């Protein structure tokens, strides 16, 4: 197996370029993707972090209500979706490595797999929502379900955007638009996808697992 880590570190620092991948001055450390895009990632993560803290603070006042309501969630489906997102993220990493090695067909297959992971997550989420609605559980039922529906729906919007980004990335890879020396846009799309995964890791713990 070819080690691509050296290849990934090939381009420079982020001090005075818009595309972090372009500077040739620092060969030891490199910020992947478009540097300005990271501002969006930081903003999104900060916003979600505030949501997480708000959820737990509200939970303090009504722990019994939250724990009782939590019983209505399917932890197996939540765990399944967590695995789906993690494997999908790993596949995106493999796709980027393949592009760096100019293996566009392999990259396209990895991205197709990640897209299928995104669609699987959406399908499972719709199954979960349908089940809740059939049992008369809505965002207005109580505070727990308000948080559950609002947080997971905001996350789902991000996941839909991420899946569309992966589809666009795959089209670009298939058209030969990206290669080892032109990775910044591709890396930015991948970072967005990983952020969706990262946020779900906390959501799964807070909404499904915490007792």
């Amino acid at each position, binding site marked *: 197996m070819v*080690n691509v880590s050296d290849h990934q570190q090939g381009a420079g620092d*982020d001090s005075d370029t818009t595309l972090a991948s372009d500077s040739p001055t620092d060969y030891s450390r490199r*910020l*992947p993707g478009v540097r300005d895009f990271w501002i969006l990632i930081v903003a999104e993560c900060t916003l979600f972090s505030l949501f997480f803290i708000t959820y737990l603070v509200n939970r303090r006042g009504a722990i019994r209500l939250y724990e009782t309501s939590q019983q209505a969630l399917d932890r197996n489906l939540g765990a399944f979706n967590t695995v789906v997102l*993690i494997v999908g993220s*790993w596949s995106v*990493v493999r796709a980027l490595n393949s592009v760096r090695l100019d293996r566009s067909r392999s990259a396209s297959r990895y991205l197709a797999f990640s897209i299928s992971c995104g669609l699987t997550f959406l399908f499972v989420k719709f199954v979960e929502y349908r089940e809740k609605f059939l049992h008369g559980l809505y965002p207005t039922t109580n505070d727990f379900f308000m948080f559950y529906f609002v947080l997971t729906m905001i996350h789902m919007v991000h996941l839909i955007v991420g899946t569309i980004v992966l589809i666009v990335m795959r089209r670009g890879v298939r058209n030969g638009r990206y290669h080892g020396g032109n990775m910044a846009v591709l890396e930015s799309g991948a970072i967005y996808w990983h952020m969706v995964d990262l946020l779900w890791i906390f959501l799964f713990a807070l909404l499904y697992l915490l*007792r």
Partner: protein
Amino acid sequence: MKSVISNQQNRALIFLLSATAISYLISHDASIGIWAGIGTLAISFVKVRLVILDFMELRHAPIQWRIGFEGGFFVVSAILIAVYAFGGVR
């Protein structure tokens, strides 16, 4: 098999899946009480850190970005654990 494990990102995948299984299992264990929740949140932080370092590729990023991102999530996780552990009456 050896080549699969020698790849950092494959190791991250195996760790993330194992950590998900562990947090799923300990959350079912009522006998350890509040520690189940604290453990679940701590495992979530470790998982997120791994996603940041190995999937988002910040392991080789300029140190200020790496510290900023890791540090940010460390602070958020610490707040979540504190609010969970010291908040409310059961």
